[in-house]
């Protein structure tokens, strides 16, 4: 048996001192914000090991340490310890404590096996057991919700996985609800989320790899794809971008989104974040890679395109004519939410000749008594609208009613009567606001919300030419974006005309014979030819001739 060497012990003692504040934490050059627990081998003496663990973890109020005697090993002493609420306590007593105390002996026929092996093979009933060789590994395992087991006379430990994280039940997705289609949304539990996908894609080709990200948080990040459909180079790129992230914490998939974006300064989301398992399943089936982050219901799908940000899974569940119309409405609304205020200001201040005389007269009379130029009016109203929207999200529920009444009154009535703004402008702001809610992907809606303001200012200073300048700048920007290497505007540009049937329109299911061209060079066929349904030649009638 290897004895613990004194260097390791010194390191550990220094670490404990630092941690208790007895001496200043040594920060070598300030590079490492968190001193690592030193690697220390276990001692064969149980009490020594337990003492160390008590020192390091005993201060936590959810820490439980239970000493037992292993009946099967002739009453040898052992210690079981864990953090209370992240393990399943019932499971701990049923699969660990009871067997240890009650099993009379190891199964026969295993001579020469040491106590540890016997415990693993014959006593513990939990599914996942791992052997730990040093203190650091054991402590890390215990902090993720495993149960530690130390046995007297053995210089190794066991960690038993009986974790039970606090989990929310599967619920309707909050940001992406639909009428037709599945009503389940992701939760904060990555295992549950993976299960939701596995239930949809019941194939051995579905692969879910995991990484631990975050130096402190050690967050589980899952990389899910279908082997054979996702390009190996893409999977490799995703994993290497994730591994590069050396950060303290990953608390939400937004951290990963911002740190892996191809163009971090772009207002457009280049990773699709969704709460819907069917959306992720559809993406994975097209050869994309899903990134699941523990503790958030928002799963990222990469690479993604502009057009998929404007489509919803429901487009494929209702018939294609409705899917197409809904999509067109969505594009119109997208345009409205971006351009309506700008165009309104541009036309009323620069190009009045475009409006019918009656309308321009009514606009002029409505603006009678309003002391500000239109742009000031508009900015006031937009600010009020955005503020109300934000307040509506943040404020404690009981106040919701009050704010909506005040908002409606202030925005609707009082502002007009006080001649602060004209009624027409309120219509413009309201329509813009409604249109901006239509985006099926929340972060896309945010981009539109943000870009509206510069375009409005351009429209107010240069008329329709200004709007055109804004549109062109956005277009150039969009055409230059890439999402994990795939052009963000594909398949619109670079054009693949056969793929256009699933962009601005959603054509018949039987025409979607091929997988997206931007992700597949070959092997694109995903359904048999000629699936367009047709009526049969014969008429079928029960109990009679044709």
């Amino acid at each position, binding site marked *: 048996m290897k004895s613990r060497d004194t260097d390791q012990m010194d390191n550990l003692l220094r670490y404990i001192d630092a941690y208790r504040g007895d001496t200043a934490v040594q920060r070598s050059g300030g590079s490492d914000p968190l001193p690592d627990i030193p690697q220390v081998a276990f001692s064969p003496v149980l009490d020594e090991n337990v003492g160390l663990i008590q020192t390091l973890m005993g201060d936590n109020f959810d820490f439980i340490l239970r000493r037992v005697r292993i009946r099967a090993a002739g009453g040898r002493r052992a210690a079981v310890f864990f953090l209370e609420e992240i393990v399943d306590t019932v499971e701990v007593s049923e699969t660990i404590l009871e067997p240890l105390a009650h099993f009379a002996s190891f199964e026969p026929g295993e001579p020469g096996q040491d106590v540890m092996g016997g415990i693993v093979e014959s006593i513990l009933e939990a599914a996942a057991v791992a052997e730990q060789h040093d203190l650091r590994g054991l402590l890390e395992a215990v902090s993720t919700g495993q149960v530690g087991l130390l046995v007297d006379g053995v210089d190794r430990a066991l960690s038993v996985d009986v974790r039970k994280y606090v989990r929310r039940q599967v619920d309707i997705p909050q940001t992406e609800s639909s009428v037709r289609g599945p009503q389940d949304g992701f939760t904060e539990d990555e295992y549950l989320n993976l299960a939701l996908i596995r239930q949809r894609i019941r194939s051995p080709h579905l692969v879910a790899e995991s990484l631990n990200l975050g130096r402190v948080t050690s967050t589980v990040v899952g990389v899910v794809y279908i082997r054979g459909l996702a390009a190996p180079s893409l999977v490799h790129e995703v994993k290497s971008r994730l591994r590069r992230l050396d950060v303290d914490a990953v608390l939400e998939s937004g951290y990963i989104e911002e740190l892996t974006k191809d163009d971090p300064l772009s207002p457009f989301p280049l990773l699709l974040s969704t709460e819907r398992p069917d959306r992720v399943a559809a993406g994975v089936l097209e050869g994309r890679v899903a990134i699941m982050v523990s503790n958030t219901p928002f799963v990222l799908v990469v690479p993604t395109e502009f057009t998929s940000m404007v489509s919803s899974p429901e487009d494929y569940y209702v018939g294609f004519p409705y899917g197409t119309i809904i999509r067109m409405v969505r594009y119109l609304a997208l345009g409205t939410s971006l351009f309506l205020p700008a165009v309104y200001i541009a*036309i009323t201040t*620069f*190009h009045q*000749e*475009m*409006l*019918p005389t*009656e*309308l321009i007269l009514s606009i002029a009379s409505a603006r009678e008594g309003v002391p500000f130029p239109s742009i000031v009016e508009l900015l006031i109203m937009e600010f009020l609208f955005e503020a109300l929207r934000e307040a509506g999200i943040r404020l404690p529920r009981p106040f919701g009613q009050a704010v909506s009444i005040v908002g409606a009154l202030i925005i609707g009535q009082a502002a007009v009567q006080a001649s602060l703004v004209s009624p027409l402008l309120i219509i413009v702001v309201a329509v813009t606001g409604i249109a901006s809610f239509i985006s099926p992907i929340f972060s896309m809606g945010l981009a539109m919300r943000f870009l509206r303001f510069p375009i409005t200012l351009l429209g107010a200073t*240069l*008329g*329709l*030419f200004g*709007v*055109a*300048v804004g*549109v*062109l*700048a956005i*277009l*150039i920007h969009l*055409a*230059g974006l890439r999402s994990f290497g795939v*052009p963000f*505007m594909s398949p*619109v*540009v*670079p*054009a693949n005309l056969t793929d256009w049937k699933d962009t601005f329109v959603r054509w018949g299911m039987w025409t979607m014979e091929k997988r997206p061209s931007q992700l597949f060079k070959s092997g694109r066929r995903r359904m048999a030819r000629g699936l367009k349904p047709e009526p049969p030649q014969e008429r079928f009638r029960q109990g009679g001739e044709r």
Partner: protein
Amino acid sequence: MREEGRISSYQAMNFIIAIILPTAILVLPSLTAERAAENAWLSPVIAFVLGLGIAYVAASLALRFPDKTVIQFAPSLLGPVLGKIVGLVFIGYFFFITIVVQREFAELMTNLFYDRTPNIVFVGLLTGLAVYVVYKGLEVLARVNDIIILLFLFSILFFLVVVIKDLRPQAFLPFLGEGIGPVVFSAIPPAAWFAEAVVIMMLVPFLQDKGKAIKANIAAVTIVFLSLMIITVGTIGILGSSETATFHFASFAVVRRIEFAGLEFFQRQDALFMALWVGAMLMKLGAFFYVGVLALSQWFNLRSYRPIIVPLATFFTVLSVQSWDSFSEFALFTGQTVPLVIGSVAYGVTLFLFVVAMLRRKELDGKA
């Protein structure tokens, strides 16, 4: 020279369309009507024949050196000194058009829409956008161009649909009243515009499917020809040839007059057409500016063209504003000088290169 990306032949076609069309529809109706009067619609036809010829010549010449632009292959064709001089002539050609386009754009905006805004605002903003797109590179330029040209061609079809009922056939009579002479003479400006298709000599190295270069160039010239016919016939058929000749931007004058029966409230929608045309004009400016800076960087054997974008853009902005004192001076310049200058470079130098390549064919084949 660093890799500048790859474009498809379809994108190259759109590129060539963008390089010719936006200013062609703007000034050619009045330039041709000035000389050929009611027979002005014939001059694009004559010019089209020449245009097809130069499009074919330029593309097939470029295909003899599939991995080089004209700046790079001219020295190997003509020897270092003469080759560099020819390269310089092309660079001058690209930049000359860049400056004219900048001013043309500003003049239209200030004349028709914003009469109290100084030229520099429009030149500056459009050039800023052009700098942005050129900085992003050829692939992005081609992608944006695909979208804009598609919309622009649709708008020309729409133009045809709405003006066709108002065309007056008598505006085209008498047929060849003064003989063929004025018509041939009036074909010079459109022929000079068509010859801008020689820019394909800068694009061939970046084509994915080089075999289709000739086809793409000819298709582009054909589409431009059809669009130009629509605009010329529409403009003269509505305004009459003498009135067309008095406008510098005759096609916009027509768009301004479009009315829809039953939709009386929907009038004077030319600002919408303007917004679309701004996009097309940006593409023309961006395309010429791109090939210009690319050519210059290749001429100097620079590793990247990006560092020279902003200085040149600033310089050209100043030049385009300062070179002509007034709109009438500029209008005269575009009517008389521009067609001759750009026509002679495009036809003269390209044909010269082509002839040399034919003469030295065996020698070159031996080398390759």
